[in-house]
C-alpha cells in the first residue's frame, strides 16, 4: 500500500497464479473441466461454489499438491509441482490438515517457521493468544475449532506471497470467525499479498473480497470484481403477472414465490431496467453476493420454502 493509503487498483495488478485449460479427472469423475483462470497479485479473491464444484481441487493444483490431467498450472511463472522455490512462497490452509501424531501446537508453528521465509513469530504468538490456543497441548487433543485455529494462525503468520484458505473455519464459533476476518484484513492492509479464500459463509466474507471466482460443476461460472458481480444483477419483486412481463426477454437467474407475488433475480440489461420495473410497479433491489451465488448455482432447485418466501414478499409489498 502507498503512504497515503491508496492501493494499486485491480487494473494495475498482474496475475501470479494461473491455470490454462486445466482438466482434472479422478477415476472417471471430472473435478475441473477445461478451466482457465488467473489470480491477481495482492488481491483477496473469494473462490465460491457448491460442494463438489472443484474449489479444493483448484487450490490443490495451484499449491502443487496435485498434477492436472491436462493443461498448465503456473505460479510465479513456473509449474508449482515439486518446485521448492515456488512452494516456499505459498501457504495452503486445508480443512483437514494432518500433523504428525506427537506434535504439540508449538511444534506445528516451529515447522511452519522453517518452511516459510516470511514467518513472523511475534505475530504467530499474538494470534495464539487471540484464539486461546494452548501452546503445549498435543494437536490430536485439540477440539475441531482449535485445530482450525492452528491452521489459521499458520496461514496468517506465514505471510506467504500467496495464501490459500480452503474453508478454514470448521468448528470455529462466530466470535473466532470474526477474529479471523479482522486479523486477516488488518494484516493484509499492512502486508498486502495474494489471498484466495474458499467458503460457504458468503455473507460473512462478502465485504472482504475484491474479486470473485465462482465455480460450478468443474467450470467457471463467473470471474469478476465483487462489486461488479453484484451490480450485474438486480432483484425485482411484486405482482407475479408484472414480474412475468418484466422477465420476458431478460436473462432470468432465479424466480421465487407462487400465486400473486413473486421475486425474480435477473441480469442487468441496461440503465433503463429500473425505470421499466418502476413502470410495472415492481420493487427493485440490489442483490447480495450470497443471493447472486445461490441464484447462479441452484439449477432451478427450490431452496427457499414457500412459507419463508411469502413472509419476505409481504414485507416487500407493504
Amino acid at each position, binding site marked *: 500500500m502507498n503512504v497515503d493509503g*491508496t492501493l494499486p487498483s485491480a487494473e494495475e495488478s498482474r496475475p501470479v497464479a494461473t491455470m490454462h485449460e486445466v482438466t482434472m479427472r479422478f477415476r472417471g469423475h471430472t473435478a475441473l473441466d477445461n478451466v482457465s483462470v488467473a489470480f491477481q497479485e495482492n488481491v483477496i479473491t473469494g473462490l465460491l461454489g457448491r460442494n463438489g464444484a472443484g474449489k479444493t481441487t483448484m487450490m490443490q493444483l495451484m499449491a502443487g499438491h496435485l498434477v492436472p490431467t491436462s493443461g498448465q498450472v503456473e505460479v510465479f511463472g513456473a509449474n508449482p509441482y515439486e518446485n521448492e522455490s515456488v512452494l516456499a512462497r505459498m501457504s495452503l490452509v486445508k480443512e483437514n490438515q494432518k500433523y504428525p501424531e506427537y506434535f504439540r501446537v508449538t511444534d506445528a508453528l516451529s515447522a511452519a517457521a522453517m518452511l516459510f521465509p516470511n514467518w513472523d513469530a511475534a505475530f504467530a504468538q499474538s494470534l495464539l493468544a487471540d484464539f486461546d490456543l494452548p501452546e503445549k497441548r498435543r494437536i490430536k487433543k485439540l477440539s475441531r475449532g482449535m485445530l482450525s485455529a492452528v491452521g489459521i494462525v499458520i496461514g496468517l503468520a506465514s505471510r506467504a506471497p500467496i495464501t490459500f484458505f480452503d474453508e478454514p473455519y470448521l468448528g470455529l464459533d462466530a466470535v473466532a470467525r470474526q477474529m479471523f476476518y479482522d486479523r486477516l*484484513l488488518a494484516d493484509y492492509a499492512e502486508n498486502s499479498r495474494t489471498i484466495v479464500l474458499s467458503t460457504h459463509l458468503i455473507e460473512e466474507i462478502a465485504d472482504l473480497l475484491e474479486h470473485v471466482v465462482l465455480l460450478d460443476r468443474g467450470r467457471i461460472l463467473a470471474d469478476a470484481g465483487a*462489486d461488479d458481480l453484484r451490480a450485474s444483477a438486480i432483484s425485482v419483486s411484486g405482482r407475479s403477472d408484472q414480474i412475468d412481463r418484466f422477465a420476458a426477454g431478460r436473462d432470468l437467474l432465479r424466480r421465487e414465490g407462487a400465486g400473486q407475488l413473486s421475486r425474480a433475480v435477473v441480469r442487468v440489461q441496461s440503465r433503463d431496467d429500473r425505470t421499466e420495473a418502476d413502470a410495472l410497479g415492481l420493487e427493485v433491489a440490489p442483490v447480495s453476493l450470497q443471493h447472486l451465488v445461490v441464484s447462479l448455482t441452484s439449477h432451478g432447485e427450490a431452496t427457499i420454502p414457500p412459507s419463508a418466501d411469502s413472509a419476505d414478499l409481504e414485507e416487500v409489498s407493504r
Partner: protein
Amino acid sequence: MNEDGGPIFRQIADQIENAIVDATLAEEAQAPSTTELAAFHRINPATAAKGINQLVADGVLYKKRGVGMFVASGAREQLLKRRRNEFAQLYLRPLLAEADKLGIGAQELTSMINDRKDPR
C-alpha cells in the same frame, strides 16, 4: 456494510459525503484513511480505496502526497448543490408514488408537511 444497499464503495463514498454535508468532517480536514475505513467497516481495503478515489475524482477530496486525503474547499457547497438536484428524484418521486397509492391528494400532503414543520 449493508450488503443489500448497492455497491460497497458507493456506500463508503456516501458516508463520507454525509459527514461533509452535516459538517462532522470540515473542509480542509483530513478524511479517514483507506486502512481506517477498511478496518472499521470490515471491508477490503481496495474497496475502501475505490470509494475514496471516487470522491477524489468528484473533487470532494484531494490528495496531499505522503500525508493523506483532505476535504476540498467548497466540497460542502458542491455536495449540497448536487443533493438538492437529486432531491426530487430520490425523495419526492417515491413519496408521491406512495401518496398516490394511498389516495393522499396534494392538499392533504401539503398540510401533512406543514403539520410536521410546526414547532410542537
